[in-house]
C-alpha cells in the first residue's frame, strides 16, 4: 500500500511528498527529515531568498509608472484581480436574473410574445483570459499534433521522404511567432470568411500561429522515434504479414511512443511560450492581450498586474509540462530510468 502510494507519487513528479509518506509510516525519521529538507526545504529557502532580493531591488527602481512593484504589491494586485472577477460574475448573475424576470413578465402579459435571450457581454476578467489562453493553446497544440504525428510516422518509415522534407523542417523550425503572425493574420482574413463565424479571427490566428511554431519537435521526434525502432520488431510484423496500417498502429506507434511524448512535451512548452506573443499581436482575449492592454493602459497598477500575469504564465507552463510528463509515464511502456 505504502509502496504503491510512493510509486504513484514518484510517477506524478511529487517527490517532495515521498519523505512525508515515509515519515508517517515511521520509517527511519532522521533519513526522512534529511530527504524532506533536500526536496522541500531547499527549494523553499531559494524561493524566499528570491522574494527578498526582488523586493529589495524593486524598491530601488523608479519607472514612469511609479516604483517597480515588489512581491507584496504584486500580491495586492492579485487580490484586486480576484475581486474584479467576483464582481464581474455577480454582475453576470444579476444580468441573467434581470433578463429572466423581464422575459417572464413579457410572457405573462402575452403568451405568444417572442422573447430574446442575450448572452452577457461584460468584459473578460483575468481568469476568463486564462481559460481563453488555455483553450487557444490546446487547439493549436492538438492541430499541430494531428499534422506532426502522421507526417512524422511517414518520415520515420520512409527515409527518402524524410530526406526530402528535412531541409524544409529545419528552415521553418526556427521562425519566430512574431514573423508568422502577420502572414497568418492575412491568410486567415482572406480564407476564413463567414457571416456567422464559429470562432473569432483572433482565436484562429493565434491557434494557427501556435501550431506553426510548436509542431516541429513532435514531427522530428516522431520521425526519429519511428526510424530507430528495433528492426526485428518490424520483421515480426513482416513475418506475420501485418497490413501496413496495422504495422503502423500495432508496432511503429507503440514502439515510438516514448519519443513521441517527449516531442509533444517540448511542443506544448513552445506552444505556451508562443501563445502569449501571438495573443498580444492578434488581440486574442487571453493572457497575452491582458499583458498588452495593461502595458497600454499604463496606470500605477499596471506593472503589478503584469507581474501577476508573468507568474501565472510561468506556473501554468510548469503545470502543463508536469501534466505531459505524468501522461507520458502512465501511457508509454518505458521511460528513461533517470526521469523517474
Amino acid at each position, binding site marked *: 500500500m505504502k509502496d504503491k502510494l510512493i510509486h504513484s507519487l514518484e510517477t506524478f513528479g511529487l517527490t517532495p511528498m515521498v519523505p512525508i509518506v515515509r515519515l508517517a509510516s515511521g520509517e527511519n525519521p532522521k533519513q526522512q527529515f534529511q530527504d524532506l529538507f533536500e526536496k522541500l526545504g531547499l527549494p523553499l529557502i531559494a524561493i524566499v531568498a528570491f522574494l527578498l532580493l526582488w523586493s529589495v531591488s524593486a524598491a530601488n527602481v523608479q519607472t514612469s509608472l511609479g516604483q517597480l512593484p515588489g512581491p507584496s504589491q504584486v500580491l495586492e494586485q492579485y487580490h484586486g484581480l480576484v475581486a474584479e472577477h467576483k464582481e464581474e460574475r455577480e454582475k453576470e448573475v444579476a444580468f441573467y436574473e434581470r433578463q429572466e424576470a423581464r422575459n417572464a413578465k413579457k410572457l405573462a402579459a402575452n403568451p405568444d410574445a417572442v422573447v430574446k435571450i442575450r448572452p452577457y457581454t461584460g468584459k473578460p476578467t483575468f481568469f476568463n483570459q486564462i481559460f481563453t489562453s488555455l483553450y487557444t493553446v490546446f487547439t493549436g497544440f492538438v492541430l499541430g499534433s494531428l499534422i506532426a504525428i502522421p507526417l512524422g510516422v511517414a518520415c520515420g518509415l520512409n527515409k527518402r521522404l524524410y530526406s526530402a522534407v528535412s531541409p524544409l523542417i529545419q528552415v521553418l523550425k526556427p521562425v519566430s511567432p512574431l514573423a508568422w503572425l502577420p502572414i497568418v493574420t492575412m491568410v486567415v482574413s482572406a480564407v476564413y470568411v463567414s457571416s456567422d463565424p464559429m470562432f473569432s479571427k483572433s482565436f484562429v490566428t493565434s491557434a494557427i500561429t501556435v501550431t506553426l511554431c510548436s509542431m516541429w519537435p513532435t514531427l522530428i521526434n516522431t520521425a526519429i522515434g519511428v526510424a530507430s525502432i528495433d528492426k*526485428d520488431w518490424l*520483421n515480426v510484423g513482416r*513475418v506475420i504479414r*501485418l497490413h501496413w496500417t496495422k504495422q503502423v498502429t500495432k508496432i511503429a506507434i*507503440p*514502439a515510438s511512443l516514448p519519443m513521441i511524448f517527449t516531442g509533444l512535451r517540448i511542443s506544448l512548452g513552445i506552444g505556451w511560450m508562443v501563445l502569449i506573443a501571438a495573443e498580444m499581436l492578434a488581440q486574442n482575449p487571453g493572457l497575452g492581450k491582458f499583458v498588452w492592454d495593461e502595458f497600454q493602459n499604463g496606470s500605477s497598477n499596471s506593472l503589478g498586474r503584469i507581474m501577476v500575469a508573468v507568474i501565472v504564465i510561468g506556473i501554468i507552463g510548469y503545470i502543463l509540462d508536469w501534466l505531459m510528463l505524468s501522461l507520458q509515464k502512465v501511457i508509454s511502456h518505458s521511460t528513461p530510468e533517470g526521469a523517474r
Partner: protein
Amino acid sequence: MSHYLDIDHVGIEFPTKNGPFRALQGVDLKIAKGEFISLIGHSGCGKSTVLNIVAGLYGATEGGVVLESKEVSEPGPDRAVVFQNHSLLPWLTAYQNVELAVKEVFKGKLNRSEMHEWIEHNLELVHMSHAMHKRPDEISGGMKQRVGIARALAMQPKVLLMDEPFGALDALTRAHLQDSLMEIQQELNNTVIMITHDVDEAVLLSDRIVMMTNGPAATIGEILKVELERPRNRVELADNAEYNHYRSQVLKFLYERQRNPAQTEGKKKSVKPRLVGKGEAA
C-alpha cells in the same frame, strides 16, 4: 529423400559504398520434412543471411528458395522466425505477443475461443502458462525466448527458423531451453533451421549440421550427418564416443580448416550490421 525445402544455389550481394559486397555464393541445401538442421560458422560468415533469405526478409541476388514446390518471395508465417534477442513487443504481455501473430495468421480460420485456446496451448508447450500475462520486462531472458518460440510455433510454420535462439542466455538456462526444444520437436516434428555458435548445441539437437566457410562469398563447407538416437540425453551423451566424434568433427572444421577470421585477418567488419543481443542474464 523428398525435398521439402530447397535452398537452390543461393548467392547474395549487398551494395556498399565501395561497390557490391558478395556475402554468399552458391549455397545449396535440400532439406527433408521434419529435419532439424543447424547452421554453424564463425561470426560474419553469413549464417543469418541464409536464414533471412529463407525467411524472405532478404531477396537472393541469384538462385532461390523453394518450399513445397513454391518459390519464396516474401516473408510469411509459413516460415516463422525466432529472433536472437526474442524481439517481443515490450508493451504487450506474453499472451498478447502470441495473440498478435495468431490473430493475423488465423484470421477467418479460427473463432475467438479457438484462438484463445490455441494461444494458451502454445504457451503451455513452452512452459509459460504461469506467466502468460506478464510483460517482457517482468520475465527473465530465458522466459522471453520461450515466448518467442511459442509465438513462432503458434503460426504453425512449415519451417521454423531460429537465429541463435539461445545465444544471449547463460549456460544453464540454455540447457533447459534446448531440452524443451527437443521435447517440442519430438511432439510436433517440425522442420527446423537453427543458427548456432555452440558446437554442443548443434550436435545435441540436429539431424544434420551445416558448416559454413568464412566470408566473403561464404558457402557451405561441409555437412555432417548426426545419427544419434532420439530422444537424446545430454548427460548420457557426454561420455558417448559417437557424440564426441561428431563434436570433434565440427571443432576441427571450425578451428583447423576455417580459422576464425578475426584471428587471421585482424578485426574485419562483419558482413552485415547485426543487432547485438542485449546480454540479459536469465
